[in-house]
């Protein structure tokens, strides 16, 4: 049963060939067996999940209408607020934080009758590329227990790759869905900024954060998008449906695509590992065989994406994380003598190293006297990158490049070298700066049998087309059918 995709499972549950209860119990059996090694979850909700599954089964048996994900066990990244359990962001400062409300995406999943099995590990406050910055636990890559799952949505991706759920939600600020999806051999979609509500997503870099699906197949990605996309009055940055109509992405998935033009950026992609480059070239050949035209483009400002990102994201983070001060909720230092010490000691005790580093960077970038040279200049670079994309998309339907320059690296390999760690997001960051959608689809393996991801980028609100392009590839290949071995 665990070999089924989310959509296949949903259809079988609807047809009463499998019950949601059976599927959910099977998932928890795998969690019992594999989770001690994989470490994908910060918390799981056995009783709540079974209750929901039984309810869905009952309603299907009674012939009542059910939602689009009826009975499908799914996971959430632990930075999405839920009224059940804790919402920790993998940070000790929120270790015992219980949100008084559900994130909009959580409400939507529940309304679609999904069964939420647990909340997944991540880099603390989504800051990182390996999930090693989690303040609470270690997650491994299901393909190789000595390697990282990527990050920051490492727990969500490991959970999908390890079949500890049928689909998951992650969040992507600079590649946090696509990079771990590529490391774990699953499909990860970062939608257009404003496509999915951020209400209830604990903010890291507010102008970059976006929630998206992590799934085994492109079809599942479309199914998840059907549930989570759309305007939310509680999120002023979620786009009006007059500008970005919400599609039935599943239905659109099967519309034929002809005269596809794909842009590649050779000078930029040249920095990737040889084996990664080879897999990408072969993937593009698949499209060529399907009749696609390939054009080479130059995007001069992509080289500055990382620099701009680490100023903008950290500036926003320094402000977003100011509220974790021990006064109103979260960890409060026992040692504080006055209110200033409540702030300084609570924060010093409970934030991890990388979070502190980014708060410092961001505070510096916004300080008077430095604002123009750093923050403002980064915004200008961001506009140039946007313009680069706009120019290229006039000539093509999508851009293809690697997701990450390498496959999954060893646990501990880069923790003491933040700059090298930052470089693992070199191909993904630009999409966040430009606000455009990007997807990672499995496109091969390296000599160590580690998955490689192909990244496809499309114009803003072009998710429907992006998913169709991705599915064309999936149709021709079977990389997505390879499953990580059960490590125990």
């Amino acid at each position, binding site marked *: 049963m665990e070999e089924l995709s989310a959509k296949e499972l949903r259809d079988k549950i609807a047809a009463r060939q499998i019950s949601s209860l059976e599927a959910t119990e099977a998932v928890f059996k795998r969690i019992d067996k594999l989770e001690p090694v994989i470490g994908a979850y910060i918390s799981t909700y056995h009783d709540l999940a079974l209750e929901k599954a039984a309810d869905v089964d009952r309603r299907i048996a009674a012939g009542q209408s059910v939602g689009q994900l009826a009975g499908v066990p799914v996971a959430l990244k632990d930075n999405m607020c839920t009224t059940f359990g804790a919402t920790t962001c993998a940070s000790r400062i929120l270790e015992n934080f219980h949100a008084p409300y559900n994130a909009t995406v959580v409400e939507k999943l529940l309304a679609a009758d999904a069964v939420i099995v647990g909340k997944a590990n991540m880099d603390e406050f989504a800051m990182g590329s390996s999930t090693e910055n989690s303040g609470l636990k270690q997650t491994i890559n299901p393909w190789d227990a000595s390697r990282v799952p990527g990050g920051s949505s490492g727990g969500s991706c490991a959970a999908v790759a390890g079949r500890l759920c049928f689909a998951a939600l992650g969040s992507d600020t600079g590649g946090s869905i696509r990079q771990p999806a590529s490391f774990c051999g699953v499909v990860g979609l970062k939608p257009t900024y404003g496509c999915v509500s951020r209400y209830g*997503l*604990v903010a890291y*870099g507010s102008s970059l954060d976006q929630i998206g699906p992590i799934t085994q197949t492109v079809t599942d990605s479309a199914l998840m998008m059907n549930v989570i996309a759309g305007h939310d009055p509680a999120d002023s*940055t979620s786009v009006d449906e007059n500008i970005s109509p919400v599609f039935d992405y599943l239905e659109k998935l099967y519309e034929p695509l002809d005269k596809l033009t794909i842009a590649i950026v050779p000078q930029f992609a040249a920095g990737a590992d040889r084996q990664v480059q080879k897999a990408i070239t072969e993937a593009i050949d698949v499209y060529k065989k399907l009749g696609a035209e390939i054009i080479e483009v130059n995007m001069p400002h992509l080289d500055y994406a990382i620099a701009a990102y680490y100023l903008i994201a950290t500036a926003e983070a320094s*402000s977003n994380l100011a509220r974790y*001060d021990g006064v109103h909720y979260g960890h409060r230092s026992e040692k504080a003598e006055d209110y200033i010490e409540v702030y300084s000691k609570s924060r010093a005790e409970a934030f991890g190293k990388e979070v502190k580093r980014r708060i410092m960077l961001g505070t510096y970038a916004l300080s008077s006297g430095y604002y123009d040279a750093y923050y403002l200049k980064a915004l200008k670079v961001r506009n140039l990158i946007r313009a680069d994309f706009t120019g290229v998309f006039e000539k093509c339907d999508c851009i293809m490049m690697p997701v990450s320059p390498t496959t999954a690296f060893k646990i501990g390999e880069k923790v003491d070298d933040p700059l090298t760690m930052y470089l693992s997001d070199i191909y993904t960051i630009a999409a966040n700066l430009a606000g455009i959608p990007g997807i990672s689809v499995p496109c091969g393996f390296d000599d160590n049998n580690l998955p490689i991801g192909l990244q496809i980028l499309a114009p803003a609100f072009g998710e429907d087309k992006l998913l169709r392009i991705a599915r064309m590839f999936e149709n021709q290949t079977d990389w997505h059918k390879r499953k990580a071995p059960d490590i125990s």
Partner: protein
Amino acid sequence: MSSDLHYKLIVGLEIHVQLCTKSKMFCGCAVEFGQKPNSRVCPVCLGMPGVLPVMNKQAFEYAVLVGLALNCEIAQFTKWDRKSYYYPDLPKNYQISQYDLPLSANGYIEIPLESGKTKNISIIRAHLEEDAGKNLHTAGNFSQVDLNRTGTPLLEIVTEPDMNSAAEVRALAVELQRMVRFLGVSEADMQKGHMRFEPNINLIITRDGTEYRTPIVEIKNLNSFRALERSVDYEQARQLDEFLENGVVMGMGNKTTRGWDDEKEITVLQREKEEAHDYRYFPDPDLVPVKMTPQWLSEIQGRLCELPIKRQLRYVDQYKLSDYDAGVLTADRSTSDLFDEAVKAGAEPKRLCNIITQTGLKIANEKGCSAGDLGLKAQSVANLAGMIEGGTISAGSAGQIFEAMVETGKEPEVLAEELNLIQKSDAGELEAIVDKVLADNPKAVDDVTGGGKKSKKARGFLLGQVMQKSKGQANPKVVSEILVKKLG
């Protein structure tokens, strides 16, 4: 040693006005004063992880309306910025405010001077922001925080240092209060902290032809007109003394902040502002900029009314009312509207003014409302004025009728009958009474006809006797005419 010394007081004001919207600036919580602490809060104004602000359109329109009344330019494009500082009454540890693109700027407010003339005080800017909560220092070693006020819409108005006396400062404050009440955008209740003032004060001193400037002092958080006026007066004297004693001038001590001690009636040093606080302003990525379209602006413009100062001047100019009476009538909108409508309904303005300012305000004070809110129809009040004018009732009985109108809702004509207050103007009937009085008081008649000193007094005496005999119902004007006819 004597020297030639002049000085000039220079004051600029920063004013915070709480807008009387139903809900808070960025969430749906009710704006209510005096409720149980932390009972008017939600995840958004508590700054919970993951929440997002949504702009209150009504607050924005109220702010624009004030901007228009202050003769400001209204920005076509305005945005929200985060102002960062740590304080327990500020849950997010940043305040959403407006920094470099305020919604309105470059205006002026016309204020009345004691001379009866007016003066224009320049307005640098007026922008919207959210209020903080309140720290309560009650329980032992701990402070408590009440966040009911957190997120209440506040309009911050900054003037140029155009005021040169404490009386002018007070006049501006009073004028602004009257203006926002007229516009219906704030209750401007000082006791509830709806208006808070922060004057910036210094002196330009000329001694023996050389000009000196004393260091600028900012007085924080004044919430009464009296404290505002007295603190400015106090600072003027203190700064002059300090200059004469120590010769302290600007640049030597820089700007300092002082507080007002209401009991001792002195200002007290709070902190030396060696350098400006670094608030690390940057655009709030959770809110979209506001674009003011010409249609929207003209719609708001349509809600602008004649401003109180203009009405006051019009009453003096057009109706020849005294500046004092005109000021009383325009102290609040509904009273002044009642006056205007009653004039329109035919009332003689001076007569009407007397009725409203004497009886009307007296009853209103007793009831704790304004004269315009006593529930009287403008036409009825106009009719009452007309009855005095036409001699149907005496001016003295107008008050009694007015009071009865408020109590019973009956028309003045009906009440005059019921209360037996219709004046006797029938010449025949009155002549009989006059004849009787003349017959009874031969001495007085002699005094009148004899002319000279006693004549006027005796005539008055006879008139009084007639009034007494008619139980006050005789029309004194008609009686006088009869007396003239009979006695010359």
